[in-house]
């Protein structure tokens, strides 16, 4: 893996990331009110089995309440993404301003990385099915 220093061109993305993370946190009361009006998962309603993204809303609400373990139990991958959104939103503008090191992703991505991503999705889905989320 090669690395490069963050430049001025990273700042717009860093600011967008920060805005998204800040907005997600500030709208915490709104998510609680709006969540019940989201439609139920058709797959879960019809088959009783969760789809790969079931539990994401509940995990997000648990995460906003600071209940990380509860969120992980509901959907580990969505919780990891939520944590990355918030932590990254705080760190990205600072990192860009300080010109911190950034990884240069190989193109195309190595097969092992792609297989790993698919395996992670499948394992997450298996978790949801096994725990009756």
């Amino acid at each position, binding site marked *: 893996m090669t690395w490069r220093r963050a430049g*001025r*061109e*990273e*700042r*717009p*993305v860093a600011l*967008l*990331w920060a*805005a*998204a993370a800040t*907005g*997600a946190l*500030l*709208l915490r009361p*709104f998510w609680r*009110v*709006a969540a*019940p*009006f989201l*439609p*139920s*998962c*058709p*797959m879960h*309603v*019809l*088959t009783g089995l969760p*789809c*790969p*993204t079931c539990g994401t809303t509940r995990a997000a609400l648990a995460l906003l309440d600071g209940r990380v373990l509860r969120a992980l139990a509901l959907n580990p991958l969505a919780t990891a993404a939520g944590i990355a*959104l918030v932590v990254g939103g705080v760190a990205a503008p600072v990192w860009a301003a300080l010109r911190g090191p950034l990884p240069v*992703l190989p*193109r*195309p*991505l190595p097969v092992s*990385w*792609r297989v790993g*991503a698919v395996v992670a*999705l499948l394992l997450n889905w298996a978790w949801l099915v096994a725990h009756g989320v």
Partner: protein
Amino acid sequence: MTGQPPETPPPPAEPRPVLPWERPGAPFFESLVETAKRFLSRPVEAYESMPVTPQLARPIAWIVIFGWIGIIASQIWSILLRTTVMSLLPQREGMSGFVAPIAVSVVFMVLAPILVLIGLFVWSAIVHLFLLMLGGAGSGFTATVRVICYAHTTDVLQVVPFCGGLIAGVWGIVLSVLGLAVAHRTTRGKALLAVLLPLALCCVCVVAIVAIFGTAMFAALSRVR
């Protein structure tokens, strides 16, 4: 010494003029309308005119404007037609709460710009991740963000009652695919998968619909210019 004259390379193609919306000093409403007309009628040409630069201020302003219009229109129709919608929904657990109270709709309209920004970042990140996995990311993340921003030109169609949201959604997917193919210099097939696979993951039972829809869309996209 005789011989064939050296072949002169063809002159470089004339670069397309930049989108009116991104021209410095362009009048606000004229550039807004002209750019919207281009994306709705000649999307490939419009995306070819889109600069693939790290600057995001203008594209983000674009999606906030059109996203806000779309959310306001959809929520107004939701408020005006909520009784009709409730009577059409199947009376089943999980569906009765689908139509939000008026207060929630009003709050939704007020918070629309923030919701648009959150959705833009999250959706762009997901699409770009899938594009990377498919080997179709020829440009950086800012190119994906720009494409998604301008694909939301179709949100203005939410002013059409009942079917406006569906048309806006489907047409927005089409614009996203065309834009990703242009901006990342990749195939429309990879761009289509990058957009449809995350949607399919949201509900596996939708996979069949997505597969049929994706096949039809791929065939149609091959003919779009």
